[in-house]
């Protein structure tokens, strides 16, 4: 007969189950009288006396959750920082306008369609630029674009959530991106946390990368990877590299410097502290 002790680890927020034999010296077997006096049992339960533990699996028999497969994000520096984008997990990319969120999204889409996968972009504000997507190398025939947001932000959010549900239910997509980048944080926070939990459960054990682009992190602990994008030091290069004032028509926006910070990662290679990288993105006409 197996007996087990259950304790709750506050640090990790999940119950652990130990075999009683393993913790005998910590927790010696009490007598019948002691058992009768023990009211109510606190934190320590004996399976032999409590039928509730019959369904509890000892930790020694628990299967270890396999680490998710990581796929390339399309930007080498980002892959070094995060190890790639995890399949079967929710990844959040947040940051303000002009912080490089869409650049990262298009790079990930280009990498996924390059692998031959079908991708979907559920666009809350109808903001995707096809020319940019083509310039980033996205294979457009493998990209499904769902354009929400014809009416109001509320309607658009509702459409986005239902369309995402349908796409996750359909399955078979390599990457599903939710573009909430232009929605005000107040509107984006209206998405209930239960929806994000549902998405996380729906995408779990599937080869789909679920990506959300937003201004601020809104999925809480549902996201396995949280990347904060920023442009703390915006440097715009000019085509004519001159120290003198040049006329505006001779200037061209050719490069943006983007910083990315790894805020949270559930992977084994969890960093001790947040790490930050910097990479540049060139405009389509910069060559």
């Amino acid at each position, binding site marked *: 007969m197996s007996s087990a002790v259950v304790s709750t680890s506050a640090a990790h927020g999940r119950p652990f189950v130990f075999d009683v034999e393993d913790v005998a010296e910590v927790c010696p077997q009490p007598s019948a009288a002691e058992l009768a006096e023990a009211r109510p049992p606190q934190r320590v339960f004996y399976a032999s006396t409590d039928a509730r533990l019959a369904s509890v699996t000892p930790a020694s028999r628990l299967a270890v959750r396999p680490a998710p497969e990581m796929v*390339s994000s*399309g*930007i*080498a520096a980002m*892959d070094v920082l995060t190890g790639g984008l995890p399949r079967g997990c929710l990844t959040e990319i947040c940051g303000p*306008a*002009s912080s*490089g*969120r*869409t*650049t990262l*999204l*298009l*790079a990930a889409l*280009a*990498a996924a369609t*390059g*692998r*031959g*996968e*079908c991708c979907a972009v559920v666009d809350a*504000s*109808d903001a*995707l630029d*096809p*020319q*940019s*997507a*083509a310039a*980033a*190398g996205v294979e*457009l*025939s*493998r*990209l*499904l*674009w*769902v*354009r*929400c947001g014809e009416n109001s932000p509320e309607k658009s959010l509702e459409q986005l959530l*239902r369309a995402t549900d349908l796409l996750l*239910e*359909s399955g*078979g*997509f*390599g990457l599903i991106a939710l573009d909430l*980048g*232009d929605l005000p944080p107040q509107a984006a926070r209206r998405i209930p946390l239960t929806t994000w939990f549902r998405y996380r459960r729906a995408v779990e054990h599937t080869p*789909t990368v679920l990506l959300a682009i937003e201004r601020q992190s809104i999925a809480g602990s549902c996201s396995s990877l949280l990347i904060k994008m920023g*442009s703390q030091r*915006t440097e*715009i290069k000019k085509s004519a590299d001159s120290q003198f004032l040049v006329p*505006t*028509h001779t200037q061209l*926006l050719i*490069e*943006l410097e983007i910083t990315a910070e790894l805020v949270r990662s559930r992977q084994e290679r969890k960093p001790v502290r947040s790490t930050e990288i910097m*990479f540049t*993105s060139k*405009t389509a006409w910069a060559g």
Partner: protein
Amino acid sequence: MPFACIFVPNFPVAAVLRAEPELRAQAVAIFEGKPPLEKVFAANESAGRVGIAPGMTKAQAELCSELTLRPRSRLQETSAHAALLDCAQSFSPRVEDAALDTALIDLAGMESLFGSLPEIVHAMSQRIASLGLEANIAVASNPDAAVLAARGFSGVTVIPQGKESESLGSLPVEVLFAGWVEGERAGKKKEDELKKTSERLVATLERWGIRTLHALAALPEVALSERLGQEGLRLQQLSRGAAFRTLVPVEMPAVFEEAVELEFPIVLLEPLAFLLNRLLEQICARLASRALNTQELRLTLELENFSSCNQQSEINHQQFCRTLRLPLPMLDPKLFLKLLQLDLSANPPGAPILKIHLTAEPARPRSSQGGLFLPPSPEPEKLELTLARIASLVGESRVGSLELLDTYRAEGFRMKRFVPGAYPDGAVLETTRQKAAAEEKSAVAALRMFRPPLRATVTLENGEPARVICSKKKEVQGTVLWKAGPWRSSGDWWEREAWARDEWDIALQTADGAALYRLMHDLLGGGWFVEGTYD
């Protein structure tokens, strides 16, 4: 050389029961004729038990409360006949369309494909039942013996070679004339002629005391020939099961149509879905029996007349057509029903429906080879349904894949149907090779569009934007920190939709730092717009 015959007894009733299977347990009678002279044309066994017989007036039949009366439907009979031929065709390419209710099949060489004769007959019986028809099936060494056995014996009959006379002997002589009228499918005049001849012959045989085929077969040939002529001899050959003729195979067109006429018009989509489901199941069963799929479904609804004073518009509005085009050949009635439902809820007919006509364009089933190392891709059936559902959510034109147009116009793209193609062979290796090169390539700065572009008030200094105010988006305003431009472009000047514009890339101060926007000056319309943001 064995021949099989599939005979559907009481065909008009069977055709109605195929369309309304819930009536199988009830007493059903079919009437035809012009009101108020409608007469019962056919009735099933249950109706016969409660005293309903062909020839009764409709008013008489209506006195029976248990009886369900249905008008004769030529459309349903045609569909049932096509289903019968489809079933026959699924076993052999040599099929004779003997009558509306009878199909003859040449089974020569079919044993190697389908097994022994009893196995073939059993499979036929299952196949015809799956098409919604109850039929008698008989196998004999010649076509006429097979027809007589199918018409005379209910269920499945296999007559061994040489035992035809013995097996058919117990059948009444009327069975010889049963298929005459239907079999000829001639004009009304010839039909009456044949009817009279058969009645005369039956009466003569009755007078002689000849009631079974056995008795007819035993008559002396010369004496029979003297009294009834060549027709008598032919009937005797038939009754002996010794007549032989060549099968006349038909080339059947691959037309898959099902239709239903309604007694009362349908107004709501929900009851329509029930009927569509039935039609789709029938049409899919027929396609499956011919090992075919479909890539296009055409739904034609005949609507109740509009009270329109314009004669032309009245004609135009009588029919409502919807076509469902699928990216790949499919055969799933539930999927088709859901797609049609979504389509009809997005485009309702707008008037009560009187008649439903459904046609499927046949296509060869798709064949695809799966691979262990191929990337994941959505199942076509599931994807189609998902796309239809999303289209009903956001609009048909707002979901799909992108196609860039050969133009410099700002929104130079169009949406098209999302059909993920098959992953090309060898592409995995190619991708691996290109992977390193792609990763080394720097990211491309993306533009996020504002659709429609945001109208802005721009203050100019020396002809260059110095300050931008956008009333619709409060964060897009402030002093221009940096600017590049103008980038002038124009096009389509030979058309009405000519365009000419100056583009500026500007940086504006925001709470989080600086944000980069694309500012556009419409040279023809004369306005400033914020087109998007670099992100």
